[in-house]
């Protein structure tokens, strides 16, 4: 489902408005997971991307960023990715920072980073893409001073979807890295 040019423009405009709205509320919502996918992805879906994906993570960023003590495993354990991307989105950096802090303060704690993709494309290539996402998180933790011996990467590719369905909502929930302690 390819967007017509005017629809792309509309989708981008809507998503920009949505992002702006988030910023106005202080950036504490885990919103607009994939606001611009409709305008960017090769197979991005029209319209739904902007409105439907705001509720993907049940845990707001506030939870993750709020775990300052470093004594408890941060509650937010899933971060999400854009289509065909392993770039860590700025809104999820506080989640990763919280996990890095926890792991640094608890050198005996181990975490497995489970990399996942959406269902589109071939399974074995997606397995490799899931590993790329988890590796990106591992590098972030490494830069934050977490010992490599505490972190392991396991990619599940598209094999363990968090949500079923052939639509952007489900896809957005499935493109994720999960911290498994």
């Amino acid at each position: 489902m390819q967007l017509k040019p005017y629809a792309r423009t509309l989708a981008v405009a809507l998503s920009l408005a949505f992002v702006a709205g988030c910023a106005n509320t202080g950036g504490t919502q885990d919103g607009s997971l994939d606001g611009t996918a409709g305008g960017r992805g090769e197979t991005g879906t029209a319209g739904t991307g902007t409105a439907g994906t705001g509720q993907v993570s049940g845990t707001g960023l506030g939870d993750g960023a709020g775990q300052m003590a470093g004594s408890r495993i941060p509650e937010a354990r899933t971060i999400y990715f854009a289509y065909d991307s392993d770039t860590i989105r700025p809104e999820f950096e506080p989640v990763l920072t919280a996990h890095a802090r926890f792991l640094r303060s608890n050198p005996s704690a181990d975490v497995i980073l489970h990399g996942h993709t959406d269902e589109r494309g071939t399974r074995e290539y997606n397995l490799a893409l899931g590993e790329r996402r988890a590796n990106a998180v591992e590098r972030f933790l490494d830069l934050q001073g977490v010992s490599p011996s505490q972190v392991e990467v396991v990619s599940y590719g598209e094999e363990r979807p968090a949500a079923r369905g052939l639509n952007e909502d489900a896809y957005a929930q499935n493109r994720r890295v999960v911290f498994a302690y």
Partner: protein
Amino acid sequence: MKALMTTWLVAMLVTFASLAQADLTIEITRGSERATPIAVVPFESPEGERLPQDVAQIVSDDLERSGYFDPLAREEMFATPSSGEAVKFGDWRALDSRYLVVGQTRREAGRVEIRYELMDVHGESRMLGEVITASESQLRGAAHRISDKIFEAITGIRGAFSTRIAYVTASGVADDMRFGLYVADADGRNSQQVLTSDEPIMSPAWSPDGKKLAYVSFETGRPAIYIQEIASGRRVRATSFEGLNSAPSWSPDGRRLAMSLSKDGQPEIYVMDIATRNLTRITHSSSIETEPSWHPSGDSLLYTSDRSGGPQLYRHPLGGEPERLTFTGGYNARGRYAPDGDAVFLIHGGERGYQVARLDLESDRLITLSESHQDESPSVAPNGTMVIFATQQGGSGVLGAVTADGRASFRLPAAQGEVREPAWSPFLD
């Protein structure tokens, strides 16, 4: 570690004659207008003798499924001869049948004797006549062998109805899932459970002798490649390196396994000598290399690499340099050679999603064969006439098949759950 890897382990999860059937049924979705009309007359049996299987119906279904034949419906037959001598060719010319199959079955000393003949209606001659015996439990297999003979007698192409398929089943979501690995007859019947697990099972691949499967199982919480003997259930863990252990593919001589491993960083293609476990690294790049498969000659590998940005197919002669094969569109992955090496079947992604396509290597033409938006895992029949693949129907994963020319197709839905990653066996006899 080495001792562990070289020791055959008994797979405790394997059950034989499992009642947990995962049989698939056939739904013809598109017939070919070029299919040849044929009539398969119900086989005559002695008064009061009922067999557990309708052999003529199985033969008729096989021939229809191939896309090469258009069997006449039984209710349109106004004569039911059971031997060549009794055939009045004019009856069948009037029904536009080009070929005719007639036969008889009877019980003989605890077995079933099947006598059948293939008649050429235009030439008014007998092309094939044979008597075979089978136990009642082997009647489906006997029917598939008859289909093979008829198919070859008419088309000149070896029939692949007696082959099998392996496939993966899945149900549930996220952390609560069940996975199964099955083998079944090529028509989806007679399924046999190979493995079940709460963790993903992926990438089943047949050994060239049809006796073993290599596959990826996450049962330890990490992916590892296993090799399992189907008949005995005995298996060995072939690889469990750090990172990805994925996409096993047997060399045509059955002695080596190509695979994708990320133990050295990025996923790269390796070839393992199965007897010695020695690994040879084939690719060296900073991109993803996966989904290897062998050229029928065993001289080169075909694999997916995203070194150009998106996934594309490359041909890599062993000991040589890789050459890019696909240039049409931004997503071409998981290629498999046709048995004669003239074409590659692959997944082609574009504006309409992901479909099975055929790349003719002579002309470089790419032709889309399937019609869904999320097709995966093409696997070619050993005679090259059909490709089986994973597709979607009503939001659930099912198997689909399409003729190599794209003219005819059918689906193999399961009673429940998702079916995926079909792998067509080699010829088994």
